[in-house]
């Protein structure tokens, strides 16, 4: 099958660009550990309130882990618990979330914290809050009539 010389050049250039992109993504994921949130732990969606750590939502200091704090959220139509939380500046925090009913989103606007929260599953993301200020948490997966009213707030304080 004949291929024009210019087309070969174009495709070699294109495929090489794709390989560079993939290499960057791969090194970031497997060497630097920047994987998308992919927690494999499960939970009974009907027993969220009585299952640790979701029986005590909010910020908790932890010892002997790679992170300093665990920030636990329970999502439910159409609110998050806690509805507002303070996090110390510079803290390394593991955000942990689940839902008691339908699928919700968990997005902290203006940051890289963005994950799906699905019934039966636990979602996690480790992050460092290195800029002070108020961050809006919102639901970015349609969950019903009050979807756009579903918010919480993280205050990063010194």
């Amino acid at each position, binding site marked *: 099958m004949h291929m024009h010389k210019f087309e070969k050049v174009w495709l070699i250039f294109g495929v090489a660009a794709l390989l560079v992109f993939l290499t960057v993504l791969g090194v970031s994921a497997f060497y630097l550990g920047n994987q*998308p949130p992919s927690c494999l732990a*499960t939970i009974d969606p009907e027993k969220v309130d009585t299952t640790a750590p979701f029986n005590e939502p909010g910020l908790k200091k932890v010892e002997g882990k790679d992170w300093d704090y665990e920030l636990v959220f329970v999502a439910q139509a159409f609110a998050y618990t806690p509805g507002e939380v303070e996090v110390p500046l510079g803290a390394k925090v593991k955000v942990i979330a689940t839902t008691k009913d339908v699928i919700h989103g968990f997005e902290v606007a203006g940051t890289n914290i963005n994950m799906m929260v699905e019934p*039966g599953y636990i979602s996690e993301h480790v992050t460092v809050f290195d800029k002070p200020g108020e961050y809006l948490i919102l639901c970015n997966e*349609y969950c019903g009539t009050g979807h756009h009213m579903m918010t919480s707030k993280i205050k990063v304080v010194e």
Partner: protein
Amino acid sequence: MLSQKVDRRDGKLAMAHFYVAFIALAIGGLAGLLQVLVRSGKFELPAGIGYYQVLTVHGVVLGLVLTTFFIMGFQLAATSKTSGTLTSKQRTIGWIGFWTMTIGTALAATMILLNEATVLYTFYAPLQAHALYYIGLTLVIVGSWLDGAAIIMKYTEWRKANPGQPSPLMTFMSLVNTLMWMVATIGVASTVLIQLLPWSLGLVETVNVGVSRTLFWYFGHPLVYFWLLPAYMAWYVVIPKVIGAKVFSDSLARMSFILFLLFSIPVGFHHQLLEPGIDPAWKFLQVILTFLVVIPSLMTAFSLFATFESFGRSKGGSGLFGWFKKLPWGDARFTVPFIGMVAFIPAGAGGIVNASHQMNQVVHNTIWVTGHFHLTVATAVVLTFFGVSFWLVPHLTGRKLTKKINKLGLIQGSLWAIGMTFMSGAMHAAGLLGAPRRSAYSEYGGAAQAIEWIPYQIAQAVGGSILFIAIILMLYIFINLAFFAPKGEEEFPVGEVAHEAEKAPMVFENWKLWLGITVLLVLFAYTVPFIDMIQNAPPGAKGFKLW
């Protein structure tokens, strides 16, 4: 055979599909207008109509109904044109397919209007719609399989009559898209029939959410290629003839379509990158496969611009870009799809961002994504479909595209380009700031971040209103071409391959080979994570009706 018109009886079948498609455009376009107006914060829906009900209408009638009906009508017409008139058995199957799809659409629409199915067109469990909504959507898919069966039968008949010959290019392309569609829709049909329907009927209490989403997205990504390939068919085969050039390469066109068949399907995880319950290594594997499906698009881009340049130069265009001026800009059949091609350049680049393992986290479920697919499907694909309608509708109804309507077509395409630049541009920008998709107007408790998004939402409303005017123009054009344009003969442009081009290798027609590799790739990408998902399943989720 190429000089023949599409048989009147096949034309009626195709036109039936187009009537439904353009009714869907009218309803879905109106829904879209209401959405951008609501999100501007300056307008509220009257009579207690819910934003999300309107959003469900918009997604279902434009994403599923307009596209599927138009594509099936176009592919049936293209097959009839290039491989000969359908037999009465094939045509009957096509009509049964059409009515099955139409009844399914009516059922689903009724449930949406009764507010029994405000679950959007993706119907993610455990939001639970009325069973008739799921049945309606299933009928749309089953009907499309019947339409597809007619195409497969015609192809088989042609191959038997012409042993050792490669099939006509347009028939080949219609067939590839049909096969891809059939393999892909198995996923959504499985989750609906095995999981969601019994659950919505109360036969089972809970549903496995992870499995359902995975089956949905196994279908959800090839769905977008199902929209795109008929546009590529027009770009590869029709556009060269419209401008008076030859098809650049028959073999490479076939090769790109085969690559789409192979790599469109095992990539659904790139829609699920931020989901729990899937190992990130398997997500990454599907990211790699997603990047492979960029290659046939690169081939397509080359082929198109090679055709344009060699044509422009043959008309005396000189210098690096002199050929560009020689293209027939006054011909809406060329210019309107060309706007679509241009839109596909940023659209494709944005798509690579979305599929990029970690970068997805910045844009996932923000309105950036909405901006993205309004460039892909709602510009590149839809403007090409409009460009096809300009000649196909009068060809099938025995009328002519007049100069006046051609001019209106050009205005329509330009308005679309302007409106979409505003709307999609503002969506991309707001998305990067964090504004979510699929959300009614909200000030998010007065959060400072959310206030920043509002000017972009007003820009979206401006763009969306311009797009709505373009839709009204298009509906006027369609009605004119279908019922009022002067009688005459409008050409069905089918490009011919350049004389010096070689015959397409017969290996492209080896479906055991290609479908075999397709299935192997699907098994490779999905088997282990899917078994994991079932073996480590959490307790199932009960249904909720939260609207």
